[in-house]
């Protein structure tokens, strides 16, 4: 906890805040150029996010999968791997959960729901591990394999849904059994029937697990060593190849869980998709926003999810096209990634602060 507080007071936190501010300003400038009123637009945006209990609940729903896919990308990154495949792992995880949720019946909730979660998570994990294994055994760059596995994952999911789970006359699967549902009806009732579910709790726990694995366990020590310097890790007797597979497996579990809860908690069925939903790709942006720190990822997801959800209000209330919000998000990421610029903007403030300290 103390660590979290220290981090909030730290330089990187201030820089992130300023980056967000600069991003919003950039968005405002673009709106002005486009002939929109940015103040009205931003007010509409925030009203959409915080306007009613229902909106708050739905914002949380939007944020949840982003936390998990963000963690997935960040975890792989910490171990020196670029996981562009959270999208595919998301889909395969989702499909695993749908399969168990639809096909099994007669089980009590306490068995069925967790089983669906676990199967989905493992499916996502194995999808990730596949890319790790290809890198370890054949030296194929994981960026390429994960991108390809995204497409394979999309079509494989569609195939499974269309061939085994399809509700006749629909472009989607049967509804999952009620015993597999991960929704939180009593909480949803308090939020105007927003689709709240257990996935949010799991996502927050996942951030804690992320931290504990990487910075408290032997496994995490090895993963970080491999990530920072595979040569030294190898010299120190660590099995670099096996650790790459472990890392991608874990990353896949995080992304898979995101997909799992979209089915078990939100929609309760899976459609045959023309294109990927994009949570996995947004996860890359979220991990960047969160600087690959698990708690940063939670905040990054909150920002990203909040802005995405709020953008609907902006188009509705201020007639600003929702794409503008993508520009805002894009510029925030730009400023987070190019911290040098932000620090340059902050320089005069730091100098003054330094002088005051010197005087004191």
């Amino acid at each position, binding site marked *: 906890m103390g660590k979290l507080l220290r981090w909030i007071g730290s330089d990187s936190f201030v820089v992130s805040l300023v980056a967000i501010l600069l991003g919003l300003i950039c968005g405002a400038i673009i709106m002005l150029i486009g002939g929109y009123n940015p103040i009205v637009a931003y007010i509409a945006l925030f009203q959409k996010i915080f306007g009613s209990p229902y909106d708050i609940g739905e914002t949380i729903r939007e944020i949840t999968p982003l936390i998990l896919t963000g963690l997935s990308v960040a975890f792989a990154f910490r171990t020196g791997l670029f996981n562009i495949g959270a999208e595919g792992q998301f889909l395969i995880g989702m499909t695993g959960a749908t399969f168990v949720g639809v096909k099994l019946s007669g089980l009590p909730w306490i068995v069925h729901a967790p089983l669906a979660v676990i199967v989905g998570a493992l499916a996502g994990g194995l999808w990730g591990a596949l890319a790790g294994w290809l890198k370890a055994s054949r030296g194929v760059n994981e960026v390429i394999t994960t991108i390809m596995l995204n497409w394979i994952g999309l079509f494989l999911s569609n195939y499974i849904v269309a061939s085994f789970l399809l509700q006749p006359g629909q472009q989607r699967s049967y509804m999952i059994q009620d015993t597999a549902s991960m929704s939180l009806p009593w909480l949803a009732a308090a939020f105007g029937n927003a689709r709240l579910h257990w996935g949010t709790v799991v996502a927050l726990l996942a951030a804690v697990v992320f931290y504990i694995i990487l910075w408290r366990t032997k*496994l995490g020590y090895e993963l*970080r060593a491999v990530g920072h310097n595979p040569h*030294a890790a*190898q*010299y120190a007797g660590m*099995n670099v190849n096996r650790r790459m597979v472990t890392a991608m497996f874990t990353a896949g579990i995080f992304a898979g869980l995101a997909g799992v809860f979209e089915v078990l908690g939100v929609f309760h069925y899976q459609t045959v998709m023309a294109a990927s939903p994009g949570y996995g790709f947004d996860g890359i942006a979220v991990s960047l926003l969160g600087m690959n720190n698990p708690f940063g990822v939670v905040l990054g997801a909150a920002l990203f999810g909040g802005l995405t959800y709020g953008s609907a209000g902006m188009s509705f209330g201020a007639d600003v096209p929702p794409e503008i919000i993508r520009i805002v998000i894009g510029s925030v990421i730009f400023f987070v990634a190019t911290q040098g610029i932000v620090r340059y903007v902050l320089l005069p403030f730091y100098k003054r602060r330094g002088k005051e300290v010197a005087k004191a």
Partner: protein
Amino acid sequence: MVPLSTADTVVELKGITKRFPGIVANDSISLQLKRGEIHALLGENGAGKSTLMNILFGLYQPDEGQIFVRGEPVTIDSPNKAFDLGIGMVHQHFKLVQPFTVTENIILGLEPSKGLNIDYKSAHARVAKLSEQYGLKIDPKARIENISVGMQQRVEILKTLYRGADILIFDEPTAVLTPQEIHELIEIFRGLVAEGKSIILITHKLKEIMEIADTVTIIRRGKVIDTLKVAETNPKELAEKMVGRGVSFRTEKKEAQPGPVVLDVKDVTCLGGKGLPVLNGISLQVRAGEIVGIAGVDGNGQSELIEALTGLRSIQSGSVTLKGKDITNEKPRRISEAGLSLIPEDRHKHGLVLDFTMSENMVLETYFHPEFSKGIFLNYDAIDKYAERLIQEFDVRTPSIYNKARSLSGGNQQKAIIAREIDKDPELLIAAQPTRGLDVGAIEFVHKRLIEQRDHGKAVLLVSFELDEILNVADRIAVIYEGQIVGEVLPKDTNDQELGLMMAGSKRMQGGEARG
């Protein structure tokens, strides 16, 4: 030529102070560099030499003090500013783009252009002309990853000359060079000053200072101790001023008491990247209680031998046993647990995880031992305590064990690795270039620890390009040439000339001859 004393001052540092959290790296340092002079900076590991030069090169900002270049007060806030002022630097650890060619590296950031394209033709021509002018032989079209360390260094020098530098800073340029390359570098220095360039040279090798430098400034713990004319001093005085006590250059040791064979290498053959043998049926024995030195010119199989012994390179034929146990082609972890430790040659690549804290680095090979872990968790309290003890015992200068390895001075990084490996108290310690980049005081300390290890009845294999080191420390010397041991001699029966001939492959001796 103008006598040095009246030559004009090109750089003057006045009262430079630089603080890092927990340490004053430079404490009010003043220094003058004259035109055409070679000015050496001498000081212990962590004394603040690299920091001072990084300030002059614009990488760090001083907290206090003034810099004058050719009499003008200046603020150097970036390396580009330094280049504008004619200051160039060759770093302790090279900064080259590996897959790029020599020319591409040299022109990086200042590419001559033809429309939107890089004008390689005129770039090659300029590079070729510079290399001729200063006698820096290079192949402009070779890729960095394929050329030797000495060659890479010339590329770094050319990079600074290409940018028009006439004040050149060298941070421990000879630490990674072979004796032959050092000789060539010294010639290059002579050429540079003859062209009117001025040089600041950081080195731990007193011999080099005596041979090439005009003036020497000694720094200890961030403060200037003295500035002397090299002609009016001697190595002993320099060493004393630098360390603050007397230093003996010859390590005292008792006669070795060799015991049973610990390491037995029999007819080992390994293939290199191109399928050609890099180890050619090599055989070697190291006994308990003795230090065997491997002498040889770089590239004759030393690295490959170490990799084969530690399980990092697969052995085609032959066998390796450690204390009677067959470890041929075993996994690195097994071999390490069987009692073999390695101080690797390349500390940044193989020895440390630079972004780990010092504490985490101290258990890189032992973190899973019961004393450092509880179930699946690490026991950070125990690790920190252990790291604290090692850092005390081996005098590793760092503000705390929580500093990233990256922030330590080069020599202190090396001391940390040595501490970690020696403290494992291995049956066999392999030390590859263990004193590279260390100050004379630290070298004395490391040699003592190696000998102590021997006196405890452990075996030590010392691989070094420094003949002085091998002659001084080893009890028995094996000469490696083209992947074979071409002879074994005792230090008392030989000298550098004979060793040099053997290393060049022109004199062979049967192992039995020397031992018999």
